[in-house]
């Protein structure tokens, strides 16, 4: 086989990997499965620690991987002082996350690189929808009493409906941590079923707030229940917990996704959020996804990274790759 033929073949395979997938419609709550979960913290930490030392991505490969990471970012602003103007600026960045001259230099100027989505509070959805119209970049709204999720159930469901009505393509809901902490899996399942109904065509990303679940076993169980209830994505954190996305937590959630996929055939996405700030972090999580879930989970329909400052670091690394000089933040347009 010639080299180019081999590459062609691999490209074909990659394209096949990117074919659209059916949504996860969930399944009946299977408590035996949930209760049978075993997670060994020390062993998970060991695996997480060596994931990044067992793999290394260098030179052109690193540039390509970082570009991929850009396409996976849910560019996020979730601050009390958000304004439509601020959100419009963010959306502009989402549509043009990397300087065109850099993309050209990398030979990917025609790839229409955008971030995976823009993620905002409900009140900012109209501004984002307007700004992103025609770009193909989806709008995600955090919802259900984000970040604590402690407003009345009816209010939370109504919040989802309104965001969908306002044009949100994705709803990042928060679970009631108390259900997971008291192991009331039926209650968690029912709540998430209602959320999923309210989402309608919008994709549901279930935030588990893993930093508040106490144990990795709880994280795994909550992940399973969220998938059984029909989540399109499971997501680590709101970004507001004291501990957000960590590699061990992400590893456990990835394993839950794999197990769910193997048993049901439904592919569920994963979104780490909070704490991913550097290009190196992005590569670590990409390695985790590729190792634990495979190539298919490196596309935006199955993997997102919730982050606000990550992009700036990736831009600098890409420029370094192109010029061979270390870059400065101010050389890249703000979001």
């Amino acid at each position, binding site marked *: 086989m010639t080299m180019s033929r081999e590459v062609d073949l691999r490209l074909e395979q990659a394209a096949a990997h990117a074919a659209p997938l059916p949504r996860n419609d969930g399944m009946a709550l299977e408590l035996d499965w949930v209760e049978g979960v*075993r997670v060994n913290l020390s*062993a*998970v930490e060991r695996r997480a620690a060596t994931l990044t030392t*067992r793999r290394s*991505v260098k030179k052109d490969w690193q540039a*390509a991987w970082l570009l*991929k990471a850009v396409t996976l970012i849910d560019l996020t602003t979730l601050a009390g002082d958000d304004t439509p103007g601020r959100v419009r600026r963010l959306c502009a960045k989402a549509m043009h996350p990397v300087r065109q001259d850099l993309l050209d230099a990398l030979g990917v100027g025609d790839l229409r690189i955008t971030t995976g989505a823009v993620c905002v509070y409900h009140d900012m959805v109209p501004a984002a929808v307007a700004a992103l119209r025609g770009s193909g970049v989806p709008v995600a709204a955090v919802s259900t009493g984000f970040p604590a999720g402690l407003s009345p159930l009816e209010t939370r469901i109504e919040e989802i409906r309104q965001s969908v009505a306002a044009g949100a393509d994705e709803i990042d809901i928060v679970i009631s941590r108390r259900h997971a902490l008291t192991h009331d899996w039926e209650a968690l399942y029912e709540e998430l079923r209602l959320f999923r109904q309210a989402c309608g065509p919008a994709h549901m990303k279930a935030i588990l707030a893993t930093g508040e679940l106490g144990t990795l076993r709880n994280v795994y169980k909550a992940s399973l229940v969220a998938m059984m209830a029909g989540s399109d994505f499971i997501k680590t954190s709101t970004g507001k917990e004291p501990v957000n996305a960590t590699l061990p937590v992400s590893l456990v959630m990835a394993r839950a996704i794999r197990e769910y996929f193997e048993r049901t055939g439904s592919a569920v996405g994963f979104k780490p959020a909070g704490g991913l700030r550097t290009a190196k972090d992005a590569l670590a999580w990409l390695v985790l996804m590729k190792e634990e879930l495979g190539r298919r989970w490196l596309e935006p329909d199955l993997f997102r990274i919730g982050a606000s400052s990550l992009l700036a670091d990736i831009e600098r690394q890409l420029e370094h790759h192109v010029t061979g000089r270390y870059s400065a933040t101010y050389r890249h347009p703000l979001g």
Partner: protein
Amino acid sequence: MSVKEIFETMEYGPAPEAADVAVAWLERHGRRFGHFIGGRFVKPAAGETFATYHPGDGKELAQVAQGDERDVAKAVKAARAALPAWRDLGGPGRARYLYALARHVQKHARLLAVLEALDNGKPIRETRDLDVPLVARHFYHHAGWAQLLDKEFPDYEGVGVCAQIIPWNFPLLMLAWKVAPALAAGNTVVLKPAEFTPLTALLFAELANEVGLPAGVFNVVTGDGLTGAALVDADGIDKVAFTGSTEVGRIIRRATAGRGVKLSLELGGKSPFIVFDDADLDSAVEGVVDAIWFNQGQVCCAGSRLLVQESVARRMEAKLVARMETLREGPSLDKGIDIGAIIAPVQLSKIERLVEQGRAEGARCYQPSWSAPKDGWYYPPTLFTEVSPAAAIAQEEIFGPVIVSLTFRTPAEAVELANDTRYGLAASVWTENINLALDVAPKLKAGVVWVNCTNQFDAAAGFGGYRESGFGREGGREGMFEYLKPRFEARLARYSSGDLAPPAAASDLGAGLDGGHGGAVAFAPIDRTPKLYIGGKQKRPDGNYSYPVLSAAGARVGDAPLGNRKDVRDAVEAAVKSGAWTQATAHARAQVLYYVAENLSARAPEFEERLRSLVGGTRKAAGREVEKSVDRLFSAAAYADKYDGRVHPTPMRNVTLAMNEPYDVLAVVCPDEAPLLAFVSLVAPALAMGNRVVAVPSARWPLPVTDLYQVFDTSDVPGGAINIVTGVRDELAKVLAQHDAVEAIWYVGSAEGSAMVERESAGNLKATWVNSGRARDWYDDAQAAGPEFLRRATRVKNVWVPYGE
């Protein structure tokens, strides 16, 4: 491939670690190395060299010296010459050097890591993240032991010149495991690195010079097996430490027998990796990766027998098969690979042969769909399922990336399968149930047990085997003893020829009937017939012969049964079956020993009389022997529940339990003198630690011990805990030394007998403790009682239990 294409394929691509600094180091030496003797590189006497290769591409890295006996003699002489000053420097003085070595290993960490990866073919990730940091850690830790030596081992001194022979799988790490404790204890070293991987030892030698280590303290002689043999045979060595195959371990055991050379062996393994149905299976899969696909499976303690509970066997198997697909195999200097190249073509063909045999025997073989690189000595990760325990691949050490999988139904069956091997190096246990883990760990015949982890090593925890995986420990306090000896040993006098009973000739049997041999026995009112004591019962000897027992003055005091090899067989069998003694609590064993003391004391006059009739001497002297024997029993009983294990502070979130475990069956061969006291001094601590004992009492004066049977019978000693065979010492000792179910043997007798015991114990590589013909003073507590006896009566098992929720 363009960025655009990679963006689609999302492949890893190459990530090479630069070899330039290591290559420059090789070039500086003209890619040619001599031995390192007396602080400098010297040419081999015969002028011969051989090549060392990079397994990743089969290309030659350098020529190194082929050592012969002249080179070895020169190195031993240098080590001997350096010994007094190094010893007299004192612990704190030596600590400075060990500390400096640790620092220099860290300073040159990357060079060491790259050179090791080049010479061995293992992934740079492993040398960089595991080998080299552990090497530095080992020198730091032992700098500490040097500093504390006088306080922590006050009655011990270094053994002298240490010959150390290390394998090719962890060249630098094994150097550290051997050299650090040796130097800390005040010994000097001649190291023979493996033929395939001599380079990092030579680089380390330069580091030793850089820190100013006195010339001759550390010497390296390179070469093949013949060089190793020359080193083992060399005059002037006091200790051999060997890590390698069981086969070579046996040869070394025989070669060192009778030379008064201290020996530690760390040999092969076929370690079980046990997965219970309540384990975190995904983590257990990663455990298997770390167990058998670490260092290409060329790890003596590799988990190479996967035992999975039936209920989860299929899931585990499916997960493993999937996991093999994502492993990456390739050049050792690629930072993104999991598996490197096999060390040498000879090893590669051994793996290929065994895998073929496994297939032929009907086992199911899984290998990943990708193929291993062709330009070096690579072998793909391999999993066998549907393997029967009798299959060669389930029994033989493959020493490659090949794991065989068997299933079990219950924890008891898991233990049975796990122990169904002649090896006993390590075991790994996966369960989320701590009750199960801590129940199984002590039942496994292995020197190291890893709970929910595998291949964890640290300088603070001992490492070493049970059974044919060898004896001795490396690391921790237990490891230090391998390089120390009690100070009094050097002062012990040799037995003179008259001190030990001559072997009974066939013509002696039944002698005395004609009035010879001291004349007729003055019978007690009712005749008493001493017998053997086996399984708690008095038994006539199989041969039904007796031999005359003469007093010191030459009078015939009585007859003793002449035990033979079948009696030894029966005694060992009884000991094997009496597991209850080992399983009894330490408190319960203490109670029994106190009770024995109590009953012996109650019958003191009778024993005094017996001793006087044999040994002669005053009533007072006989009284003293009985009194001291009672005291020894009290001490042993007292120690039973006080010779604690330890919790080693290894640098991870876990408890590393160092448990003192008895041997299953321990043989004790007693000297002639002090017939009651020597027996009690030896047997009581062995019993206290939970060993089942087969003892050969004083051959000359066995009667005080045959009198003890009634004491045992009335003291709740369970049958089989202590078994006694009287007869000709060295004849019985030989049968015991050869017996594969005897795991340790203590011998006190002649120098020739000591040599014989060491030589004959090579069969199952039992732990030996012999006196080399030197006499202890049984009345001196420093020589005849205390922790040394307890240490010799136990082996340390390190159980690693990580925790965290």
